[in-house]
């Protein structure tokens, strides 16, 4: 698989650590953040291809973070992750340009598939801008 850059954002540190480790194991360039603010800061210094973003986080929530992310890096694809699907945030997320809205728990392989498709989309859009 092609190595692309992913940013995992979730307030559960354990979840972030595990998933980052497993994604690195699969050959991805993965970085974790435990909140929206931290994620946005990381984005200042590094370009990411795909972000996986938890919807429900204390402080800056997923939707707010998504909005900021899309403002700063419109081409970065974002996959929203949610514990219990909220219809409201689901449609909001998609309208704000999220690539997908996925229910937790999601098997790593499924998430990987989603991320690969999101990355593929980013490549297409980048190709168009050039």
């Amino acid at each position, binding site marked *: 698989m092609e190595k692309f850059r992913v940013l995992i954002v979730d307030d559960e540190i354990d979840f972030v650590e595990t998933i980052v480790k497993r994604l690195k194991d699969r050959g991805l360039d993965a970085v974790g953040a435990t909140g929206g603010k931290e994620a946005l800061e990381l984005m200042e210094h590094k370009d990411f291809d795909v972000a996986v973003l938890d919807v429900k986080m204390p402080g800056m929530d997923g939707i707010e973070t998504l909005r900021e992310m899309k403002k700063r890096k419109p081409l970065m694809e974002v996959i929203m992750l*949610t514990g*219990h*699907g909220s*219809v409201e945030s*689901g*449609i909001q997320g*998609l*309208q704000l*340009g*999220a*690539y*997908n*809205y*996925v*229910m937790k728990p999601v098997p790593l392989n499924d998430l990987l598939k989603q991320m690969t*498709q999101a990355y*593929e*989309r980013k490549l*297409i*859009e980048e190709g*168009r801008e050039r």
Partner: protein
Amino acid sequence: MAKRLNSRFFPYIPSVLVLASAVLTGVFSEPWQAVVLLVIAGIAYINAKGTVKTIDKAEEACRTLNEQLCRAEKLSTVDELSAGIAHEINNPLGIIAQETQWIKHVFKSKSLQKLKEIEDCADSLNQICMQVDRCKEIVHKLLSLARELEPVIQCLDLNELVSQMTNIVKKEMEERNIKILMNLETNLPLVYSDPPLLRQVVLNLLINAAHAIERDGEICVSTMAVSPQSVKVIVMDTGCGIPKEHVDKVFTPFFSTKKQGKGTGLGLAICRGIIERLGGNISVVSEFGKSTAFTIHLPINRIPQGDILHGS
């Protein structure tokens, strides 16, 4: 109207004339000649019927084309207008939001906090912020309606997409005793389309279906292959239905039957915009008080439709 009648009447004249001569021949001349003439009259009649049918069909096609043209023109005007309004309103909205934030900040100063009335003012400010957010949301939706977004085409499994979106609403539906039935065609071909845009449409339709039911009912989601070139998705609900006089308007921007402040009336307009950009079409059939079914037809390989709508 007179013209309509004429064009349907003339083709029958030959058969009528032959029939008349058949009768005359029968009365005044040989019966076998009359029979031959009768047969000819029959053939002429069938021919005339065919002609009238063809005329009907042609007129029908002409009418639908005209309607489509009207709608395309209207759409592009709505597109331009809404984009214009949205941009113009966005800037003042931004300034209002900024100034409110500033006042909020000023209110935090110690000398002002002693004042009793300041709490009232803070409440008002919060209300202003909320309403500004609401306006921003509408503007955002308008922009996404008008945005000439060029779809990004990827290969996708429609059944998987539909199931994912259904999963999102499942829990809330269970709480309201709404059953979701899935009727997905197992051999559905993969479709080349824009996944996130389609997700938005499907989720929107599911949410609408749930709104129509409120409590206790069923939503049925089906997918099926229509032809080697196209597939369809149907979202059917046993909800309140749409009154006849409203059926034509449900896709019109800002048309809403929901209470003021709930729903912007843009959801279905956005859905139609998306589906048409993907080269498909969306339609609705409803029985008031009983059920509503939205059907999305999608090409398996996207046919660019933007060219037709925008005339470029």
